[in-house]
C-alpha cells in the first residue's frame, strides 16, 4: 500500500506523514516513509510518501500510489501520474480546486477551510490525516490519535486534536455520501 501527502513546503506534510507512519508502525505494520522538499522553508513542491507492508519493505519509495492527498495544486502534476488506476485522490477545495479526469476516485474536501474555521490554517495537515483515515481505514483512529499526541508540542495539542476530530468527521460524512451516491466525481 502506498500513500502520498503532497502540497507545498510549510504545510507540515512531512510531520503529518511521520505521524501516520507512527500510527501504522504502532499497529505492527512495516513502513517506509520518504520525503522530498525544496531548500526553501516555505513553498515549492513537497511530498512525503509511505510504503506500507506486512513484511519488510523492498523498494522504499512510492511508485504506484493507492491514496493521494493533495493540499496544493503544485502537487497535482507530478503526483497524479503515480496514482494507481482506482486510487483515491483527496484534494483540498481551496488550494487544489480542480481535479482533472482520470482513472481514479476524486474526493474534494474542505480541509484548509475547516482548519481556518478552527483558528489556524497550519492544522490543515492534521485535518487531512483525520479525513484520510476516516475514508480509508488505513489505521485505527485511536492509533493515529496516539501518534498525533506523541508528536505535537503541548501548545498545539488541543488545536491538533480538534483538527483531527474535524478531519474524522469530514471523512466520515464523505464516506456516507459516497455510499448514498455510488458515482463519485
Amino acid at each position, binding site marked *: 500500500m502506498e500513500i502520498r501527502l503532497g502540497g507545498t513546503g510549510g504545510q507540515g506534510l512531512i510531520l503529518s506523514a511521520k505521524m501516520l507512519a507512527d500510527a501504522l508502525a504502532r499497529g*505492527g505494520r512495516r513502513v*517506509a516513509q*520518504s520525503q522530498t522538499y525544496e*531548500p526553501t522553508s516555505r513553498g515549492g513542491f513537497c511530498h512525503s510518501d509511505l510504503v506500507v507492508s506486512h513484511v519488510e*519493505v523492498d523498494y522504499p519509495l512510492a511508485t504506484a500510489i493507492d491514496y493521494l492527498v493533495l493540499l496544493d495544486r503544485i502537487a497535482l502534476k507530478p503526483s497524479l501520474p503515480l496514482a494507481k488506476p482506482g486510487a483515491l485522490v483527496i484534494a483540498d477545495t481551496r488550494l487544489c480546486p480542480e481535479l482533472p479526469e482520470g482513472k481514479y476516485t476524486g474526493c474534494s474536501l474542505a480541509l484548509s477551510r475547516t482548519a481556518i474555521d478552527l483558528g489556524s490554517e497550519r492544522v490543515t495537515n492534521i485535518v487531512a490525516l483525520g479525513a484520510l483515515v476516516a475514508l480509508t481505514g488505513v489505521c485505527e483512529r485511536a492509533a493515529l490519535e496516539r501518534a498525533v499526541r506523541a508528536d505535537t508540542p503541548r501548545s498545539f495539542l488541543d488545536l491538533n486534536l480538534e483538527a483531527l476530530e474535524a478531519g474524522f468527521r469530514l471523512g466520515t460524512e464523505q464516506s456516507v455520501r459516497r455510499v448514498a451516491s455510488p458515482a463519485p466525481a
Partner: protein
Amino acid sequence: MSIATVAVEPAASNLRLLSGNHACALGAIAAGCRFFAGYPITPSSEIAERLSRELPRVDGVFIQMEDEIASIAAVIGASMGGAKAMTATSGPGFSLKQENLGYAALAEIPCVIVNVMRGGPSTGMPTRPAQGDIMQARWGSHGDFPVIVLAPGSVREIYEETIRAFALAETYRTPVTVLYDQSIAQLLETVELKQPGAPVERKWASGPPEKYQPYAPLDNGVPAMARPGDGYRSHTTGLTHAENGFPTQTPEVVERNIGRLLGKLERHRAAIESFQTLRCEDADVVVVAVGISARAAGSAVAACRAKGIRAGMFRPITLWPFPEEALRRAASGARAVLVPEMNAGQMRLEVERVLGRDVRIEGLHKISGDPIDPAAITARIEALCI
C-alpha cells in the same frame, strides 16, 4: 524536524521507526563514539542534531564547530586524545574535509566521516539525493592514500555499518567514510536493531617507552598508538615521516613507510570487504548498485525473475576497497552487467576496470535529483537480454 522514536505494539516489540540519520547517530553511540564535531548541512544535519542530545547522556562531547574543516580537525585531535570520534557532512562539506581526511590517512588517526550525498556539483541540490561522491570518497584527497568507504543501503544497515566503521577505523588506524544518499538518510523505516557487540579498541602502545616508535608496525602492519599520559614519546605530522614519526624525504625510508601505508588495507582486504549477492549464480544480467539504487535494483531483479528473466544483483557494501574478486565471481556467467547510479557514471568505471572487456557493461545514469525507478532498471535488463 526532530524525529522521535516509536516503539510499536508488543507483537512486534523489537521494531522501531527510525530515520537513516537517526540510525547513524545510534550506531555511533553503540560503537563507543564519544566525540562529535560538525557543522550542520542538509541532508546530514539530523545526525548532528541527534548526537547533540545523545552524547551528553553518555558523558560524550558534542561541538558545533565554525566550519567543516575545523570539524574534522577537531575529530582528529579528539581521536589522538583517545576518543572514538566522528563528523558528518554532505556535498560541499565533504569537499572541505578532504585535506584533513588525507592527514588522518597519513598520520593513521582512526576516525569516522559520514557523507550524505546530495545533488552536485558545488552547492548543487541540497535536498535531493545523488551518488556523485563515489569517486571523491576514494580519491578526494591528494596523493596516494588508503581509505575505507562503506555504502549502506537501508536504515538498518546504516546503523550496522556505522558500528563497523568505528571497528575498522580502530583496527586499522584509518579514516572510514560512511557514504549514503539523501533518500536513505531521511527515510524512516521500521527496523529491528541488533544488539551491538563490545566496542572495538585500537591497539595502544605497551612495553618499554624508550623502545616505542609511533609508526613501527606491529605484526599486522598497523602501528600501536601512544595513549596520552601513558608516558610514550610520540610525534605526529602531515609530512611524510619515518617510523619515529619525524619528517623525512629519504627515498628508501619514504618508500618503506608509504609502501606499508598503502599495503595496510590490501593486506586485510578479506576482513574489510563486504558485499551482497542476489541471485547471481545463474544470472544473464548482473546489476551492480549501491544505496537507494540497489534498493531499486533488488526490486527490479524480483520483477525480472517473475517474468522468467535471469537477473541478479551485486551490491558492494564496502565500496572502497572495491570487492573486486567477489564481483568477478558474481558476474562470471553473465552476458551483461548494468550499473544504475545517480551520477554520470562513476562506479561503472570501476566495474569496467575490474571486469575488463570480457562482458558487456552498461550504465544507467541519472543526474536529475530523482532516484532511479525500479521499472527503469527492469526495462534495461530486458533490453540487455534481447
